């Protein structure tokens, strides 16, 4: 408990540092976001001045950041260049990304561990080779190739899934993009599980357990697998945050109006408040995910739990 509180306290400086760094990064981007909004059309200087003033773009970095933080304390996240409040935008979009990330995460957890176990138990067999080859391919193929291919084949040609959009809601609309997004992590989970399992199956305590006459299912399921899952849990924890942040391409291909799409658009438009707002929430998710992973370690491995106490 004290450990959890300690970790939460650590989050405060991390929070301030990240928001400031992100804000500064958007600030130093070259160019003029207001002029870019007008595109190739002529804009009088008068209008440009009004807009710059409205978004405080003439102020120095520290003043802008201070104003933003002050607003944040009052629950005001600022607004986009089109006048939409950022808080409203986050509310709209957050659900989409969370559903997508959750689908992907469940997919890589369930299928990844299952594949890893199958491959690990039959090391060198056909299943093992197939898993190795398959995961190598998935890791090597860029996500947009996997995404567009899946969309054309499973969505358009076979009609198994909707091609794009969120019309069907969860899970229908999220299955295919979830699998695409989760495929990369799945490959890692499968390989991590396999390697750790192979190693642990050769270890002393497994031999001892087998020698005591324990059934193989119990030896594998409780003794070997539980220890093998420690690196996997680490990966899955961090990856949940990655999935949230890394959905840019997948959300674009499948037209899911989520956080990833928004961050991408906002960086292009240099919309500081949006980028910082989204990133701040992402940072908090990362912190929470890491905390959850640390606490899970204890459950999986008593040695870690005792060392802390």
């Amino acid at each position, binding site marked *: 408990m004290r450990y959890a509180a300690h970790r939460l306290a650590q989050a405060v400086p991390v929070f301030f540092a990240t928001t400031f760094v992100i804000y500064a990064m958007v600030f130093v*981007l*070259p*160019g*003029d*976001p207001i*002029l*870019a*909004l*007008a*595109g*190739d*059309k*002529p*804009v*009088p200087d*008068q*209008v440009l001045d*009004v*807009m710059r003033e*409205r978004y405080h773009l003439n102020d120095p970095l520290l003043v802008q950041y201070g104003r933003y933080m002050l607003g944040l304390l009052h629950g005001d996240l600022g607004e986009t*260049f*089109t*006048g*939409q409040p950022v808080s409203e*935008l986050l509310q*709209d*979009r957050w659900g989409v990304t969370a559903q997508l990330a959750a689908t992907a995460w469940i997919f890589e957890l369930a299928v990844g561990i299952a594949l890893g176990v199958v491959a690990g138990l039959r090391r060198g067999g056909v299943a093992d080779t197939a898993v190795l080859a398959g995961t190598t391919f998935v890791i090597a193929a860029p996500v947009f190739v996997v995404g*567009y291919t899946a*969309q*054309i084949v499973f*969505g*358009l040609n076979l*009609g198994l899934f*909707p*091609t*794009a*959009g*969120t*019309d069907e809601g969860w899970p229908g609309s999220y299955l295919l993009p979830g699998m695409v997004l989760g495929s990369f992590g799945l490959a890692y989970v499968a390989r991590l599980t396999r390697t750790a399992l192979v190693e642990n199956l050769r270890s002393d305590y497994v031999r001892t357990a087998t020698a005591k006459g324990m059934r193989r299912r119990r030896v594998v399921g409780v003794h070997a697998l539980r220890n093998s899952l420690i690196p996997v849990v680490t990966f899955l924890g961090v990856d949940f945050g990655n999935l949230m942040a890394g959905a840019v391409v997948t*959300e*674009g*291909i*499948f*037209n899911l*109006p989520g956080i990833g*799409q*928004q961050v991408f*658009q906002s960086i*292009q*438009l*240099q919309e500081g408040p949006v980028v910082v707002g989204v990133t701040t929430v992402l940072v908090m998710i990362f912190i929470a995910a890491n905390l959850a992973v640390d606490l899970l370690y204890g459950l999986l491995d008593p040695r870690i739990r005792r060392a802390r106490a």
Partner: protein
Amino acid sequence: MRISGRGTVALAVAAVMFGGACGGTPETPATSEFSVALTEPDHLTPGNTSSSYSQTVIDALFDMPVYIDAQGKPQMRAAASVTSTDQKVWTIKIKPGRKFGNGEPVTAQSFADSWNAAAYGPNGWTNNYYFGNIEGYDALNPEEGEPATDTMSGLKVLDPETLEVTLTGPFSQFPVTLAWMAFAPMPKAAFKDLKAYDQAPIGNGPFVLDGAWQHNRQIKIKKSPTYTGERQARSDGVLFKIYASRDTAYTDLRADRVDLLQTIPPASAPEAKRLLGDRFLATPGGTMDYLGFPLFDKRFASADLRRAFSMAIDRKAITDAVFNGAFQPMSSLLAPLVPGYRADACGEACVYDPAKAKQLFDQAGGFSGTLNLYFSNADPSYEQWMTAVANQLKQNLGIQDIAFKKLPAADYLPTLRAHKQDGPYRNNWVMDYPSPQDYLEYMWGAGNRMGWENKEFDDLIKKANSAASFDESIPIYQQAEDVALTEMPMMPLWNWQDQIGYSTRLGDVQITPYGANLDKITVKRQ
């Protein structure tokens, strides 16, 4: 809710025509609704957006004073007539008895209010610029401080059906400009809360908003109960489905998940033609690409050198290779659909002739130093065609040292505005209204990106603007175009094509470069 008598009749007629269409749940569109793929609009206030996505929606929600017919000629829509004796003081008669979607009558004041709001500097609206030639504009946009007034002295409401507009000088193109969405009327209700209005605009057009604008997801509109104009909607409503990527929208069109897509990516054009047959339409649009020269860099000071560049570029090879032949090589500064367009205005200077180009290039003294080519990173096709341009310049003119300056979009436009580019740059133009003036004056006129100054050109534009009629202005604009082509501060490259596809459910799709005409589309019963 009160529905006017006429509205009830219209609804009853609609219900008979599209029997059984009513009562559909929001998730499953009723049989006489159709969906249109769209990119998220920035704003939906007519005076505060210039994006083509917004225009598709605004064109369905509003009747502009004038519209452009399929032949490119201005015709009356919300206005009954637009007349002037001296091209400076214009009298606009408004058609009587028209209503906004909320029941408010459309009067001359509705137009004056809307235009004043757009021209009012502190509002910071995108289309502010288009009101610059109305008398009193300056008072709303002072150099320093807040304006003392919020109405332009050049706008006079003589009676509810008559608006008198006084311009700062004669301008023969004024009626054509009234087709641009910035000139739409706004109801009194809008000015209580302009921010709320931007989210839920009330217009005088054949459709009204149906439910809230769901950002990045959808905008729903339905047949207006109060509309009595010529554009009675032939469907019950339209669902705009918002896409972040054109490719995804195209996939959805193929999967029959969206009925109409106006922007099929050029790369997919041959496939779309094959798959959709006569449900694929390709029409030359008003959008042009140009290559501009920075004349303030003295290496580009010679017109011969600029012409040599133009003759060294094989436009046809590039449009075939990069745009699948979907874009048309141009030998004119104007797009083909603009009145006054001449297919070969440029003549020899736009014909690919590497031998002549090289000769001209050497005569002009050649080129020294690094040739930087400027474009933004907004679309990957820019780099593709710039690479082709670079290769042709290398091969045909022998310029070996060529570098790309690929800038983020937010940095690209400020660079051009500040004249910081030191090499040829990509210049794009989307037509606002079909007049040579919309191209020539905005791109080659005062304060242009090339840093080009030519008194003869400026005088000709001024003369054409004050010509006695639209028709009389055309030959004078053509003379101005000739000057700009001879001097070649910016060369034409190609004209974009609008590539439209639609599903088997739709009939009477009559999209022109000037409007989507969504009101005309019918939905077949399946």
